[in-house]
């Protein structure tokens, strides 16, 4: 039987309340402080290095984000590592927290569908994440302006903006993972551990797992006549299951404009190419379009699974 009334009734109310909770909560403040400090430290260290070699690149602002200076990794490497943690911290107790506080049945006794509760909470998490990242983006540009004494050019701004959107989508994937576990597990600690386990798998172990599986599927990396192309393609496909890989590829193509390809390149393909010459912005976006849509699709699919699981649950708290 078809239900009457919009499933989105109340989404705005839930979103406003939850976003306010996320943004004013001590947990969010601590995590944001951690991200801000480490990212700004990495950007500052990169600026010091760039100032010593100021004439080397026309994309100084992009180097600000990609350059690593010992002992700190690059700004984007830090973001790639810390954003999942922030997203998991936002979402791991989104639904099970309502169960344990015994607020779920009270809220769902109001004229809203549970669709609105889940979607409102997820969008609120995404908004909180986006506000944090946008602030960090502005702060980094401000720092660059102050210490480099140069303004970013249009191409750099567009690339950095694209990277910001990709970072939000990347955070969205981990937020969806955290939401899924918050729906599946009633204990918030179990949900947090499960989400962190998935994060560790993709952050640390996935690069170990993919060569083994690719070898099993496509044979050894080196064939009799040279590199085994089937192996390289299989390994890359498996690698791209990880959101970390997709995000790293987006960062590479958008923030290092000389990047012309993200997969194995045959000698015949680079004949006549001006190696080291930057690609136009539009070409870089075309290069990472599958990765960006992959992240967004991943986020939607994982959220949809969480949604289906939540719809099937009994509300008794």
């Amino acid at each position, binding site marked *: 039987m078809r239900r009457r*009334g919009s499933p989105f009734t109340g989404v705005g109310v*839930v979103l406003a309340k939850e976003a306010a909770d996320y943004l004013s*909560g001590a947990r969010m403040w601590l995590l944001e402080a951690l991200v801000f400090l480490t990212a700004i430290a990495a950007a500052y260290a990169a600026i010091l290095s760039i100032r010593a070699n100021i004439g080397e690149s026309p994309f100084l602002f992009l180097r600000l984000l990609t350059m690593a200076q010992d002992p700190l990794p690059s700004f984007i490497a830090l973001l790639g590592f810390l954003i999942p943690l922030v997203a998991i911290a936002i979402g791991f107790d989104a639904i099970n927290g309502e169960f344990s506080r015994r*607020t779920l*049945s*009270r809220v769902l006794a*109001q*004229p*809203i569908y549970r669709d609105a509760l889940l979607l409102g909470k997820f969008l609120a998490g995404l908004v909180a994440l986006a506000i944090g990242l946008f602030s960090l983006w502005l702060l980094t540009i401000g720092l660059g302006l102050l210490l480099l004494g140069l303004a970013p050019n249009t191409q750099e701004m567009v690339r950095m903006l694209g990277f910001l959107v990709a970072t939000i989508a990347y955070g969205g994937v981990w937020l969806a993972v955290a939401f899924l576990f918050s729906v599946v597990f009633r204990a918030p600690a179990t949900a947090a551990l499960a989400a962190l386990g998935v994060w560790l798998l993709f952050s640390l172990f996935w690069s170990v797992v993919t060569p083994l599986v690719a070898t099993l599927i496509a044979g050894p990396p080196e064939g009799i006549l040279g590199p085994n192309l089937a192996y390289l393609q299989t390994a890359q496909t498996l690698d791209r299951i990880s959101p970390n890989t997709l995000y790293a590829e987006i960062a590479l193509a958008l923030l290092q404009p000389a990047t012309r390809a993200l997969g194995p390149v045959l000698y015949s393909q680079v004949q006549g190419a001006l190696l080291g010459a930057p690609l136009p912005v539009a070409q870089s976006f075309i290069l990472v379009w599958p990765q960006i849509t992959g992240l967004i699709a991943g986020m939607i699919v994982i959220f949809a699974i969480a949604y289906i699981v939540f719809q099937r649950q009994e509300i008794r708290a």
Partner: protein
Amino acid sequence: MPDEIVISAQGLTKRYGATIAVDHIDLDVRAGEIVGILGPNGSGKTTTILMLLGLTEPTEGRAEVAGFDPLRDPLEVKRRVGYLPDSVGFYDGLSARDNLAYTGRLAGLSRREIDQRFTEALERVGLPDVGRDRVATFSRGMRQRLGLAEVLMKRPSIAILDEPTATLDPHSTQEFLGMIRGLKADGTAVLLSSHHLDQVQSVCDRVALFNRGRIALWGSVTELAQRVLGGGYVIDVEARGDAVRNQLAAVPGVVRVQALGPELYRVDCERDLRAEIARRLAPSFDLLGIRFAEPSLNEVYTRYFDEVRDAA
């Protein structure tokens, strides 16, 4: 309208795989009526409430709440029903006002309506000065009152209260029962689930006794007593003398005699036997008093489940 049926259920059933949580129940509740839902844990009370609220789908049967089908129009049903779950939870970090403003906004109330109704509701539940306090500082009793304030803010035509006094002290319980009577006075139908039989008896017009997913008994306490205790009339007799009990038991129409004290007897009768009892006892005994006793719901409940156990 007092006789308007605001909740009706026909053959309402809920199965979880092979387990039947609610088994073809029929129920009707009128406007301004307080109906008690009783039964052991797992007898189907909460599942019934959730089905009436549209929070869980019935496997079979149909219900109508405030004129709407909870399965098809859950939003319309929830607009008209106030629900107080057992051990109600709040967002501890928020103030009482912010907690109720959130659910008020979800219920579609405007900011002005929320402000006005919040003040009124807090006063009515005896918490007029705590609006700005964080709920984390509230006792259990205060939380229950705040839960009732949330129900009142909605101005519902039906209030469903699930074990509302389970965590309250005796004084707060009495105050809370007074508030429930206040809902009835407003014309609100109340569905009250509770394990406290004396409380149910003191406020409810009718009672549904659940057992294994079915409504085993349904009616006023007097009607239930008639069916379970075998007599619709219970008379307390105060008399002094030997063998009073035997004399009482010999009166035609007496079903059972219990000695409640050295000179106090409770007599279950098929009809009003006060005059006959007086005539029988007066010549031989000192008759100190004779009056109707309210049949005890506790006794009905205990006897019913004793019989169920014996039958099993």
